[in-house]
Each structure stands twice: as C-alpha cells, then as structure tokens.
C-alpha cells in the first residue's frame, strides 16, 4: 500500500530542528530553572521518534550514523568520571566545583562541573531510549 506522506515529511524536516533546539535550551536552563539533562534527553528522543515516524529505520540510521548503545556508554563514563573526579581532591564523592569565568562572547558566566554530569545524564537518556525504540520498532 502506497500512501502519500508529503505533508508529514516536510513538517518533520522543520519541526525536528525546533524540538532539538528546545531540548538544548532546556538542558542548559536546567541549573536554575525547570529542566535538566533528563528532560532534554527525552525531548531529543522525541525528535528522533518523529524522524522515525515520518521516514523509516534505514533512512534514520543513515542520517544519524551512531550506535546508540555506545552513546549510553559514553554518557555513563562522563557522569561517573565527573562524580569520581572529586575523590582526587580529598572531598566527598559527587562534590561539584564552580567558579566565575569571563568568556569572550557571553561575558561573566559561572561554570559548574555539575553541567558535565548533566551532559552524561543527557547522553545516557538519549542512548537508552532510542535503543529501546529501535529495538521495539525494528521487528516488523
């Protein structure tokens, strides 16, 4: 059965980037306002699910050539590495450090090591959720 999906595919090509940018925004907003790595990862997964709905598994695998189990591993390494790095400075596990830096474009910003941990959580959520959805949807 051949169906016409022009509207869905054209909308997806635009909306994918809107959802992805919003997920990045909500990831960076997560330190002081609602948001964070988990919600950002789930939104990115939603964007990839929209691609999978409008196209098929083969096309998406060609467009995003990642092995998402390895993405999960990188995320776990990042999160646990940030948490374990505090041991070397004689402070308790999971202690995070922050300081104010003057960046050329953003002005004075406070950078936290908790952000690296949050990036790890983001990668773990994206990898695990996309792997689940590809595994469930793959056996047609």
């Amino acid at each position, binding site marked *: *059965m051949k*169906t016409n999906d022009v509207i*869905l595919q054209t909308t997806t090509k635009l*909306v994918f980037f809107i*959802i992805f940018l*919003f997920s990045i925004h*909500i990831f960076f*907003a997560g330190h002081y*306002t*609602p*948001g964070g790595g988990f*919600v950002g990862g789930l*939104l990115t997964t*939603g964007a990839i*699910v*929209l691609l*999978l*709905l409008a*196209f*098929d*598994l*083969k*096309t998406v695998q060609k467009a995003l050539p990642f092995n998402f189990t390895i993405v999960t591993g990188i995320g776990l390494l990042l999160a646990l590495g940030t948490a374990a790095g505090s041991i070397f400075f004689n402070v308790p596990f999971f202690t995070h450090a922050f300081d104010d830096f003057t960046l050329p474009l953003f002005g004075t910003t406070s950078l936290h090591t908790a952000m690296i941990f949050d990036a790890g959580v983001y990668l773990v959520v994206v990898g695990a959720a996309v792997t689940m*959805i590809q595994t*469930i*949807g*793959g056996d*047609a």
Partner: protein
Amino acid sequence: MTTFIWVCLILVILSIVGLLYRVYRGPSVPDRLVALDAIGVMLISAIALLSILFDTGFFMEVILLIAIMSFIGTVSFSKFIEKGEIIERDRTS
C-alpha cells in the same frame, strides 16, 4: 480579574472531564484520538491560566513541552490508524 480566571479554569477542567468520558466510551478509535489531542490542548490552556494566576513565567517551558509531546503522540496514533504499523524498517517496498 482573578474570579474570571478561576471561572475559566473550572470550565477548562470540566471540559477535560467531558473529554475523558469520550476517551472512555468513544465508539470508534478516531473519536478517542481526537479526544486525547483535545485533552492535550486543554492541559496547555489550564497551565497557561495557572501561570497567570501565580504570576510566573516558569510554566512556559512546560507548555511547550506538553505541546511537543502531544503532537508526537497524535502523529504516531494517526499513523497507527492509517497503516497499522508505527515504525517501518524500509519504506521503499
């Protein structure tokens, strides 16, 4: 003004109850799908009214998030109704 917004909020919640009845007892699957989509819209309007009541802007991201998730859910449900298969392996065949 506050009374007006409370009345609107109560009306929106009543319409969510009516839509839940339609989801429970929709004669066909498309009825339930349209009702679920409308529940998403009603949730968005309820959160917008709450954000006016609490005088805060923190709920705007929640509104955008519910809108995106509701859109993806509606698209996947309608694809399931039309094709019976949500994620295809190869579309060319």
